[in-house]
């Protein structure tokens, strides 16, 4: 038989038994879709966490006050429980190393911002000029914090886009003086960047010089020191240098935690990857269950068509040809199931992305390939038995419908 005839013949059989075909398609496509959807969710979660950390910048070493035993994972390190102050002098002491390209001390607090009659509560970040480059942020207009001595409390601020829109509306923000707490600051720039980092929305941020923030919040202690290493390779050296320097300055006690985003990211990445593989695997099992359904339905199909198979033999079809015909039918069915499953799964993950834009729920390539492979393989394996049974039918008895 020529290939197009084999395909045509099995296609007509599929069309000839619509309810059986639809039932199998349903089982197949739902399983395939669930593989895609579940892995898309897992992958989306992984990407979300990845993105959250990637926004911190690459080659970043972060110093937090307080010591956590499992560096990088403890909740209290993330919250910043403070045993001994981390100061501007600590940060300055770190500037000397050749592998360190940039340093940004960080101070965070909240205050009420007001301009004319408009008021709102804002998050204020105190830092230095290098923060902009270090965090890969972009300005929409104006300039970032001036390059001055760190301890000079210049009364200027850079504001996030949302703050600009809410406080200034149609007015131009640049050059205006806004009040933060008791002090007045001149707006010198507006941030263009969107997105979040360490849980803070850049659009809702007001950035002022670190010394101004220390004065505003009335505390010398820093929230973080962000350090950018020259290269990925130099990270370890930078960490060691940082720990030694701080230890020396804090009377021989290492009371800070030095983390890299890599370490944290890896942990999350591993957990979420494992999760994705896990749900993918479970969904793949449902695909195998669909395979058992396929086997049963194909067995019924073969017994329904006993006389036809007998006839094919009488017309000169060998066992092998019958085998090929039935297997082709099962393969077509699987392929169709995969096709509809892809539509369902990809459509579903598109739906998730529309509903939750933060979650980049794309099914990973391996899940797409695997669900295709598993579907075709189960289709083949589970139709092997019915097909073999059909090919071995005694033509005389088959023609009598036994």
């Amino acid at each position, binding site marked *: 038989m*020529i290939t197009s005839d084999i395909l045509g013949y099995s296609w007509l059989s599929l069309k000839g038994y619509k309810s059986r075909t639809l039932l199998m398609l349903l089982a197949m496509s739902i399983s395939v879709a669930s593989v895609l959807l579940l892995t898309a969710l897992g992958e989306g979660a992984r990407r979300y966490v990845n993105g959250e950390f990637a926004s911190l910048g690459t080659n970043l070493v972060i110093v937090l006050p307080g010591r956590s035993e499992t560096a990088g994972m403890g909740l209290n390190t993330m919250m910043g429980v403070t045993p001994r102050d981390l100061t501007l002098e600590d940060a300055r002491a770190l500037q000397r190393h050749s592998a360190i390209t940039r340093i940004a001390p960080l101070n965070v607090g909240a205050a009420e911002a007001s301009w004319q009659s408009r008021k709102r509560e804002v998050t204020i970040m105190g830092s230095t000029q290098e923060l902009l480059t270090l965090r890969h942020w972009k300005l929409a207009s104006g300039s970032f914090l001036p390059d001055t001595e760190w301890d000079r409390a210049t009364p200027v601020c850079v504001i996030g886009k949302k703050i600009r829109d809410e406080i200034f509306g149609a007015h131009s923000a640049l050059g205006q003086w806004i009040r933060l707490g008791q002090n007045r600051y001149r707006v010198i720039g507006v941030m263009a960047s969107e997105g979040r980092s360490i849980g803070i929305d850049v659009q809702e941020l007001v950035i002022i010089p670190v010394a101004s923030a220390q004065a505003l919040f009335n505390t010398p202690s820093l929230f973080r020191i962000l350090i950018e290493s020259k290269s990925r390779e130099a990270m370890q050296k930078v960490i060691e240098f940082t720990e030694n320097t701080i230890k020396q300055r804090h009377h021989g006690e290492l009371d800070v935690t030095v983390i890299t985003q890599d370490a944290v990211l890896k942990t999350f990445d591993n957990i979420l990857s494992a999760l994705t593989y896990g749900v993918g695997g479970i969904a793949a099992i449902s695909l195998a269950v669909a395979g058992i359904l396929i086997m049963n339905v194909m067995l019924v199909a073969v017994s329904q068509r006993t006389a*036809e198979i007998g006839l094919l*033999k*009488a*017309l000169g079809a060998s066992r092998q040809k019958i085998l090929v015909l039935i297997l082709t039918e099962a393969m077509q069915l699987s392929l169709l199931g995969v096709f509809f499953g892809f539509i369902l799964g990809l459509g579903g993950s598109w739906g998730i992305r529309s509903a939750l834009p933060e979650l980049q729920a794309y099914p990973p390539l391996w899940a797409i390939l695997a669900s295709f492979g598993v579907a075709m393989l189960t289709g083949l394996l589970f139709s092997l038995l019915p097909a073999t049974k059909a090919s071995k039918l005694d033509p005389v008895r088959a023609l009598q419908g036994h």
Partner: protein
Amino acid sequence: MIKLEHIHRDFQVGDQTVHALDDINLEITQGEYLSVMGPSGSGKSTLLNLIGMLDHATSGSYSLADQNITEMDEQQEAQIRNKYIGFVFQAFHLIPRLSAAENIELPLVLAGIAPSVRQPKVEQALQAMNLVDRAHHKPDQLSGGQRQRVAIARATITEPSVLLADEPTGNLDQKSGEDVIDTLESLNKKGITLIIVTHDHHLGKRSARAIKMLDGRIESDQANG
């Protein structure tokens, strides 16, 4: 052409052995017209199935067109069947989802013949069987006589040397039955070896050679005329 020597075909039913064919010796030459008659259960269908290689002898030897069938494997048999044998059944055995033309085409499709070659042959067969205007009808849209003519067209599309018909008129009324027999006989006149199993004595008399079977044996084998 066809040569059966000491053919036995036993069936095991429970702990009883049924001798469906009991020492059959039969020689048929190319172009003969044979009728096989006999009471129900006398082994007529078994004989026909054996000649058509749908069934195999328990013992004895069978050769078709000077080829020893007894020693062939399944694949070779299928090929020989496709090339030399045409079957016509009492129950038509048309595939319901295929049109008349597609049913007729099936043996060519199974033989792997290209569509461009098949097309004219099917066309011609439809014409010969007077079915041109029914070409695209499904079997359930055809009368019994038309269905059997589709089956005959299908059986002869590969131009086989032997046409085996097992009670071809059994499901037909008198008139369509005669039409079908006429069709089969005209094929025989063109050179095909025709073997018809029938209950109809009138039909049995029309054939050049008549075989009567009883209990798996050939009771008589005589020329009409």
